[in-house]
């Protein structure tokens, strides 16, 4: 087991029960700084539950989450975000009726001045902050797709799925989190789109060296290509961890996926 000292995000004995259903069972996990960790497992194995518990959407039923040396167990979603964890959602939760810029800026909440006076009266200062942030948002979006940077003020609902995923990742990245949680970014996309999106993620990872990523993914090609290490869950328990090649060889993992007796 990885020692707690070298983990950016560490969970110890972390559990989540929904009534009688144990969605996550005493999970011990450590994510090393700057790595890309793949979280895999069959449907219902507790991957998204893990994200939801870490980000404070669900309260834990037991156990501890530490981030960057601090105990963040049962922090509110807001506090988790301020601590430096940002995420995307399985069913992309963008606001389709808002513009690209609006959506990205939601992710930048903690860096924006939220005072009423600043927003309503000090419009010159607001303009300055707006322009700075527009540049930042556009630069970030352009890393993913340059043409997208020219369409910052169009409604997200008019964009295809791959662009929505890109925008969602930008929303998570704009606040410069230390840890990015990607919940099935390839869901609903074609093979080629998935490949393009992974290129983007690797490109971003190349630019932001300090960034640590946990990615939930069903496409094993993606996992093989971009992860440094993998954790496999089944029925809420960790059944295996290690680099993808080792994990894929593991008998327990094969049983979990293929049902071999």
């Amino acid at each position, binding site marked *: 087991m990885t020692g707690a000292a070298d983990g950016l995000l560490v969970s110890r004995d972390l559990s989540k029960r929904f009534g009688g259903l144990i969605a996550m069972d005493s999970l011990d996990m450590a994510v090393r700084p700057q790595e890309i960790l793949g979280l895999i497992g069959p449907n219902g194995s507790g991957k998204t539950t893990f994200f939801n518990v870490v980000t404070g*959407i669900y309260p834990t039923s037991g156990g501890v989450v530490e981030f960057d040396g601090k105990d963040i167990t049962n922090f509110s979603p*807001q506090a988790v975000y301020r601590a430096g964890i940002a995420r995307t959602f399985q069913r992309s939760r963008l606001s389709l009726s808002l513009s690209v810029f609006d959506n990205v800026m*939601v992710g930048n909440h903690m860096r924006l001045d939220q005072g009423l006076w600043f927003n*309503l009266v000090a419009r010159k200062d607001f*303009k300055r902050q707006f322009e700075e942030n527009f540049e930042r948002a556009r630069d970030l979006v352009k890393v993913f797709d340059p043409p997208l940077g020219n369409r910052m003020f169009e409604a997200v609902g008019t964009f295809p799925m791959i662009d929505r995923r890109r925008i969602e990742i930008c929303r998570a990245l704009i606040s410069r989190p230390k840890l990015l949680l990607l919940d099935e970014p390839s869901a609903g996309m074609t093979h080629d789109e998935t490949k393009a999106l992974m290129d983007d993620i690797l490109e971003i990872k190349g630019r932001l060296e300090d960034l640590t990523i946990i990615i939930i993914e069903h496409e094993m090609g993606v996992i093989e290509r971009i992860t440094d290490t993998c954790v496999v869950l089944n029925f809420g328990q960790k059944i295996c961890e290690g680099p993808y090649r080792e994990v894929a060889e593991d008998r327990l993992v094969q049983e979990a996926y293929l049902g071999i007796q």
Partner: protein
Amino acid sequence: MFAVLLPGIGSAVAVTVYVILLLAVESQAAIAGLLVAGVIAVLAAARFGGMARIGRSFAERENAMNLVIILAVLAVTGFFYEDHFILLLMATVIIYVIACLGLNLQFGYAGVLNFAGAAFFGVGCYTAAVLTKNTAMPHLLILVAGGVMAAVIGSLLILPVLRTRSHYSAVVTIAFALLFKIFLEVNDTLGGPQGLPVDGMNVLGWEFNDDIEIGEDFEIAFYVNYIVVGLIVLALAFTFVRRLERSWVGLNLDALRLDETAAACFGLNITRWKITAFTLGNFLTGVAGALYAMMLGFIAPTNFTFGDSLILVSIILLGGIGNPWGLVVATTILIILPEKLQVIQEYRFLLFGAMVILILLFRPEGLLPRPLRTYLPGWRPK
């Protein structure tokens, strides 16, 4: 530069003339004819791209167009300078728009559906009644006091509204609307069912409720006073709501309305922003109420029924949720139509109900759908 303004000014002139005609004509057949002609003109304009061009005038030359609209209202006011009934209608429209701006802030932006709009309007009215009769508070301050009282009373509802989501918070406000009217009816200090008299507005010795006499036989109806003050308050409220929408605060409200969970995951304090929107909205509604009470000179619980709250909500649905200009259009239609077309006077609620159903079915975003947010009007990325 001027070419962009032309469609906007042209339409403003056309609408002004149309409104004057509509208000001046008495024969029911002529009014019906005008209404049909108006609908056809709007549909035709929409069909041939005229609406888009008018929209561009408003979007690109905002300040100029705001001024044009104010001038248009003043022109109509000038035309009917001695007609009490029509000026009262106009002032009512202006005051209702202010109240609806408040509800729009709550529902259109933060998604808090408030079915007690008329109750908070009533709080403003009763505040004005009590303060004008019992204190020497300057009347402009009483407008503010009406707003503050509505916000304070509204804070009673904050806990139950926050603990419930969407439809359920609406039920909380419905309960409050009903309670409020019953409270007024049984409360003798507030006049009970008979209501209370209210002093007319008086600013620096200028009596708002006296007709303005110029020379020997030239008289201007006193409602013009209220139209002018109403326009000023409206302009302030409009600017306020606009700026709010075009700021990070407006973004926060949209984000939490559309997806509370996602918003929370990006640090938004849902409670703080819902309270902000609810309180500011009630404040605007209360200010409108205080002005209304001073204009009418007398208020009673029957002015603040649940039905009146429903009218406010239907104005927002009809106009375009989140679009302040939509409110102006919808309020004008909903207030003036039943007064002019007496056939529907008795069936006005039936008409409003039918309108809301039709809008929800065929144009769910309202007559004037809300455009995407522009933070700084006229701003272009470098």
